[in-house]
C-alpha cells in the first residue's frame, strides 16, 4: 500500500511537470503579451525595455528554467496584469471555486443518483421517463440562458435568492443550480445503466431470496457494486466544475478560478495562466488519487500493487 502511494506520488509529479511544460509552451503561442501591456504610443525601445524587465527577451528554454526554479522555491512569478504575485491571486479564488463546484456536485449527484437508481428499479416507469426528460433538458439548455432565467425568476421576481456575490450560502443556490443541472444528466444516465447491469446479477437475486426489503437490496447490494463508474464520472465532473464554470461565474459574478484563468489567457498573462493551470493540475491529480484509493474501499477485489 505504501509502495503504491509512493509510486502514485512519483507519477503525479511527472504528470504535473508535463502539464507545466505544455502550458508554458501553449501560453507563448497565444501571442505577445507586451502588445496588450504597453500603451499604443510606446516606442519600440520602450517595449524592449519592458520586455527585458519581465525577462521575456530570453530564449524559451531559459525562461522555462527560470520558471521551474521559481516554482521549486514557491515563487510562481508576478502577474503581468495585476502586478501581484501570481500564486496568492489564484489561491484567493480557489475556495469560492471549490464551494461552487461542491454545491453543484451535491445537486447533480443527489438528483442524478436518486433518479438513476429509481429509473433502473423500474425501467419505463414514470420516474424513468420524467428523469430522462429532465436530464435531456439540463443538457440542452445553455447555462447562460438558464442562469438568466434563474436570476429572473428566483432573484428578481420571487426575491428568494441574491443574484450575485458569494458571501452566504444563499448566494450559492442559484449558481450551483445552474451549474449542477447540466451534470445531473450525465450522473443520471451513468447511474441508471450501472444499476441496470448490477440488478441482473445473481447476488441481487440471492439478496431477495434472503428476505431483504427491496430498498435494502438496492441501497446495500446494488448501489455499492454500481458505484465505481458513478464515482469515476463524479470525480471527472468535479474537476470540470472547478475550472470550467466560467459562464456561471460570469453571470452570477462569482469570484472563481474559471474566470480568472480565462481572463489571464486573454490578457496573455503568462505567469498567472501557468500558476492557475498548475494549481488546477494539482487538484486534478489529487482528486484522481483520492478516487483510486476510494475504488479499493468500494471494491475489495482491487488490489494496490
Amino acid at each position: 500500500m505504501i509502495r503504491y502511494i509512493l509510486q502514485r506520488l512519483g507519477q503525479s509529479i511527472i504528470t504535473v511537470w508535463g502539464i507545466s511544460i505544455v502550458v508554458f509552451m501553449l501560453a507563448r503561442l497565444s501571442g505577445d503579451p507586451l502588445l496588450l501591456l504597453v500603451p499604443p504610443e510606446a516606442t519600440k525601445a520602450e517595449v524592449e525595455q519592458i520586455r527585458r524587465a519581465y525577462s521575456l527577451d530570453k530564449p524559451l528554454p531559459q525562461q522555462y528554467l527560470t520558471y521551474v526554479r521559481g516554482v521549486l522555491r514557491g515563487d510562481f512569478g508576478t502577474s503581468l496584469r495585476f502586478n501581484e504575485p501570481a500564486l496568492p491571486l489564484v489561491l484567493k479564488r480557489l475556495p469560492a471555486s471549490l464551494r461552487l463546484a461542491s454545491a453543484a456536485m451535491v445537486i447533480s449527484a443527489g438528483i442524478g443518483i436518486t433518479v438513476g437508481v429509481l429509473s433502473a428499479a423500474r425501467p419505463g416507469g414514470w420516474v424513468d421517463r420524467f428523469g430522462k426528460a429532465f436530464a435531456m433538458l439540463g443538457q440542452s439548455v445553455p447555462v447562460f440562458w438558464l442562469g438568466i432565467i434563474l436570476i429572473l425568476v428566483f432573484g428578481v421576481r420571487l426575491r428568494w435568492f441574491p443574484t450575485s456575490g458569494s458571501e452566504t450560502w444563499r448566494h450559492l443556490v442559484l449558481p450551483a443550480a445552474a451549474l449542477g443541472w447540466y451534470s445531473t444528466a450525465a450522473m443520471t444516465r451513468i447511474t441508471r445503466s450501472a444499476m441496470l447491469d448490477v440488478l441482473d446479477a445473481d447476488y441481487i437475486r440471492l439478496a431477495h431470496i434472503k428476505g431483504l426489503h427491496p430498498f435494502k437490496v438496492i441501497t446495500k447490494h446494488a448501489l455499492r457494486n454500481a458505484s465505481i463508474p458513478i464515482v469515476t464520472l463524479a470525480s471527472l465532473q468535479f474537476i470540470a466544475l472547478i475550472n470550467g464554470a466560467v459562464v456561471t461565474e460570469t453571470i452570477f459574478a462569482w469570484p472563481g478560478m474559471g474566470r480568472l484563468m480565462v481572463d489571464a489567457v486573454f490578457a496573455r498573462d503568462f505567469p498567472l495562466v501557468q500558476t492557475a493551470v498548475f494549481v488546477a493540475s494539482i487538484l486534478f491529480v489529487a482528486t484522481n488519487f483520492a478516487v483510486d484509493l476510494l475504488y479499493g474501499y468500494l471494491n475489495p477485489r482491487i488490489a494496490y500493487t
Partner: protein
Amino acid sequence: MTAAERAPLLQVRDLRTYFYTRAGVVKAVDGVDFAVQRGEIVGLVGESGSGKSNVCLSILNLVPKPAGRIVSGEIVLEGTNLLGLSERAMRTVRGRDVAMILQDPLSSLNPVFTVGDQVGEALRVHGRVSGDLRERVIGALQKVHIPGASTRLRDYPHQFSGGMRQRVMAAIAISCAPKLLLADEPTTALDVTIQAQFLQLMRELREGDLGILYVTHDLGVVAQLCDRVLVMYAGQIVESGTVEQVFHAPRHPYTAALISSVPVLGAKRRRLYQIEGQPPNPLAPPAGCRFHPRCPQADDQCRAAMPEPATDGNVTYRCWHPLNGRLSVTP
C-alpha cells in the same frame, strides 16, 4: 401425531407460472403438483428450460416481474398457502422458512461484502439472533465445514475457491434454520470431487427435519442423493416416484430416454443414446402430449390430448402408453 405434522412440509398443487413476452405467452410451469416431506430430498430433473428453476422461484414468489406471473395454483408450506401471503409476509418466509442455493457460487455472492456479513445478513433481517451474531455466523460456517471459520468470515468471496463459495452459499441458506431448502443445480459449476463433498454436505443437512428440493439435470446426482424424483418436461411433471422405482422401471418414455442417455461405466462401447429432436419451442408447445414429437411410440391419441396423471401405485406418470418396466425406448 397431529394432522398438521402428518401433512407434507410442502404441497404444491396445479402451479402455473407464465411469462408474458412480446412474442407470446411462455408457460414455463404448467400445472405442476408435488409434495416434499420433512427430512426428504426430492430431486427435480429435466432439460434446460423445462421449468425447474421457475418452480423454485415460484415457491419463493420471486418470478422475474413484470413478465413472469404465477397464474394459478397453491403452494402450501406447513398449512399456509404462500401464494395468499402479502409481499411483506412473504419476505419473512424467504430466508427464514424457505432458503435457496443458487447454481453459480462465483456470481451469487456479493463481491464487495465480507462472507461474514453475507452469512449474517439473513439472521439480522429475520431477527434470529439470540446472543452473539458473530458466533451464529461462525456456527453456520462450521456446519458447512469451512476450515478456520472464525478468521475466514472477514474474507471476501474472491478469496474462496469455487467449492468453498458454494459452502458459503449453503451456510447462508441454513443460517436461519429453514424448513425447506431449494437447491438449484448447486453442483453444476463444481468439479466432480468437490461435487461429491457437496452432496455429502447435503446429506448431513437433511439430518433432522429439513426438506430439500434438489434441482439438477444430472441423474447420477439424483441416484446418489435423493429419496424421490420428479421428472419435468416442457413445464410439466411427466413422471414421479421413488428414485429406485423410477430408475429401475420408468413408465414414461422421456424418463427412460433420459436414463438411457447416461453413460455407464464398463458398458460396451457404443454410441450414447440420444433423444431425437429438440426440446419444444416454449412459445408454441406441441398439442397433446408435449413429448410426442420426440417419442418413438407416439400415435394419434398422443397427438390429440395430453394424458392426465395416472399411477400404478408406485410411480405417477403422464403417458398414454406407459412402458412396462422395460428400460428401453427402442421398439
